[in-house]
């Protein structure tokens, strides 16, 4: 069964095209990497898939049901860590997590237990600081905790590993692996291709403006194998990404 299915998704901002006729499907229990250069429409696509943005046209199905911004029942089953983190800065971490937990319908006792456990596991026990006073990495940990606190079936993570220290990344990767082993789905965007290569089973690569250029299984890369694309063999994700997106290095002589 597909946990996520997008069909002919188009998103325009006025006349500007941000996502062009994007279609993709993600199997349940998969760790799926959604890659693309800056400004290629990754966050816009996630915005449409999670109800923040209205798609101009196209269909989105999550967990087998048509999804739109008003579908609260589906929203209860998904977790999202947005690119901007979406933190209420004047709050303390426990207040923010408790608020999210209560909004997702967790009772008082479960809320307290899960907030305490998450804060300890993610080393966020300094409760004398508000979220605005946290470092970027700590803020990211809080946003990650908020995305998983209600034990969602599909998890959307927009650039989750950037700015987090190696220990934090290792912990998150372990959690995410266990998550998918239980049949739940993780949809990740990231620019850290080495990490994506190691944790994801499948990736989709888009280029500007939100146009799918490749989707495929990359499990072979984690086992020192290769991926074949357009008749060429790629042993790592980075050359494949550069090949597909056409990104190139520009030299500045004065620099």
């Amino acid at each position, binding site marked *: 069964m597909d946990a996520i299915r997008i069909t002919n998704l188009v998103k325009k901002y006025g006349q500007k095209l941000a996502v062009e006729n994007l279609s993709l499907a993600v199997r349940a229990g998969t760790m799926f990497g959604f890659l693309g250069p800056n400004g290629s429409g990754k966050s816009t696509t996630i915005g449409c898939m999670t109800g923040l943005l209205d798609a101009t046209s196209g269909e989105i199905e999550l967990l087998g049901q048509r999804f739109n911004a008003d579908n609260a029942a589906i*929203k209860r089953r998904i977790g999202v860590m947005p690119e901007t*983190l*979406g933190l*209420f*800065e004047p709050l303390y971490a426990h207040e923010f997590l408790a*608020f999210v937990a209560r*909004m997702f319908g967790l009772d008082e006792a479960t809320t307290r237990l899960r907030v*305490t456990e998450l804060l300890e596991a993610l080393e966020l026990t300094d409760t004398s600081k508000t979220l*605005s006073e946290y470092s970027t990495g700590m803020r990211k940990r809080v946003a990650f905790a908020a995305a998983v606190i209600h034990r969602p079936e599909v998890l959307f993570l927009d650039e989750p590993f950037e700015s987090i220290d190696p220990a934090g990344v290792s912990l998150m990767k372990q959690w995410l692996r266990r998550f998918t082993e239980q049949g739940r789905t993780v949809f990740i965007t990231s620019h850290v291709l080495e990490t994506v290569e190691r944790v994801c089973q499948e990736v989709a690569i888009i280029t500007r403006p939100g146009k799918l250029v490749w989707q495929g299984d990359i499990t072979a890369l984690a086992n020192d194998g290769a991926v074949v694309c357009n008749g060429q063999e790629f042993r790592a994700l980075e050359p494949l990404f550069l090949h597909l997106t056409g990104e190139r290095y520009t030299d500045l002589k004065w620099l």
Partner: protein
Amino acid sequence: MNIAPIGELVKLRYKLLWAKTRSRNGRIALFLAGYLLLVMLIALLASGGFGAAMLAVRSGKAEQIAQGVLAVLFLEAVLAANVLGFGMSAIFSETELRRYPLAAPERRMARHLTGILDPFWFLFLALQLGLAVGLYVMGAGSFWFGLIAVLLLFAANYLLARVVGLFIDQMMQRKGGAPVLLMLIMSLAFLPSVATPLMKKNPAILPAVVQRLQYTPPFGAAAAMIHPDAAGVYGLAIIVAWIAGLAALLVWLEKRPPRRQVAESVKIVWDSPFDRVGALFGPQMGPLVGHWLRFYGRNSRTRTLYLISLPLLAFLTWQTGQRMGPHSLLIAALGTFPMATFLGTSRISVNQFGYVGGAFRRYFLLPTDPAATLRAGSYAAVTIGASMLPIALLAWIVFVPYPFDPRMLLMLFCTGFTGLFVLNALGIWVTLFNPRKGNYNSNFGNDLSLGGNILLMGGMLIAMFLPRLLYKFQPALVSLESWWMFLPLPALALAFYLATLKSAGPVFVNRREKLLAIVEGRS
């Protein structure tokens, strides 16, 4: 001192002012019109000052009138700068300026130059210049003495506004600072109501008070404008002394490390009053209302405005409650009570999402009707605003020298309640159609949008002058005997508020992408 980058920063201040408008479609014309209006206003104020000068000379009391006009302008500038945040730009804070290759004195100079060269201060400068030129033209003063006096007074006025602003800011950050500040403001606000009867009983006090006031900048400036001799030089010296003192005080305040009020305890508190009050709104809305109550309650500007709203409005009631029959104070209070329930939360009420930044996205990820967020924010503002009503009524009973009459309380309750719901309903529309990205932690600067300013200031002016106009043209409508006519007002206001909530929900959802772009600073 490296002057060139400081000049660039001042230019940047105006470029940013322009860019803010340019970035929104169709606003350029509005911006130009606004600036034309500003220029006209400056001309009008200058002619107003000129008119005051003519009156001063013709009445034969040139110095007294000049003293009065300058003192009122001086105090109003301090009040407007701190309460409404005009002329206190936070764009170039110390933290922001540290990015540039500037030494500490250069940063200080840049910060205050961008602060003083603000359109707001030019309005006051125009009035004062009008007065000085008027006095000169009417042959009652020296042009050069007047000009120097106005420029010095202008600098002293800015410095005092900054010192007051910083003092309030630092007091609010201290533990227990808020009540102390409240007592100070209350004392100042109620001073006129205590001093006036005292002076009436003992007229000899007045000359003594005036004698002391000679040592203040407005009186010093008035002396310099009228007397181009040793007395004028003495007046200028008084202002220079004030400038030196205020500048030293400002530097001292700026150098003091801010004291954090944040608890150092690591103990997690689960059962907060915000959540308890929020729970009154039911299991669905409770967490959201609790969240918004926390958002309002943690905002130091909201806390400051909430604390000073009562004394400020008491002062305005006393000031405007004159010459309107035996119940002048009641008529004035009918105009100030609607603001008492709105002023405290006004900054966020008219721009609910402007201070949440990227967290705005979170509202659409929650498994609830997105419009519930808008409603919950407004419920929180109404709850906080409503809490001021019993306090204001109690203050009325305690301080106002009228025999207790329940009709008065009922009339005031009705206007307070009406103001609460009408202004919060209008605030929702401004939130949706004219939001602006703001800094939640900033205590300085007027960061409201045009619509927010119009609602806040227009609402305040209409509320204050409507009872006065009614008294002039239909006095029966604001008399005690007409108390029953006030009864339908709260019901009408509540109906308007509920209708607004219902119709604003879909608008909020439809406009969410535009709102997102604005609150995240992309538009």
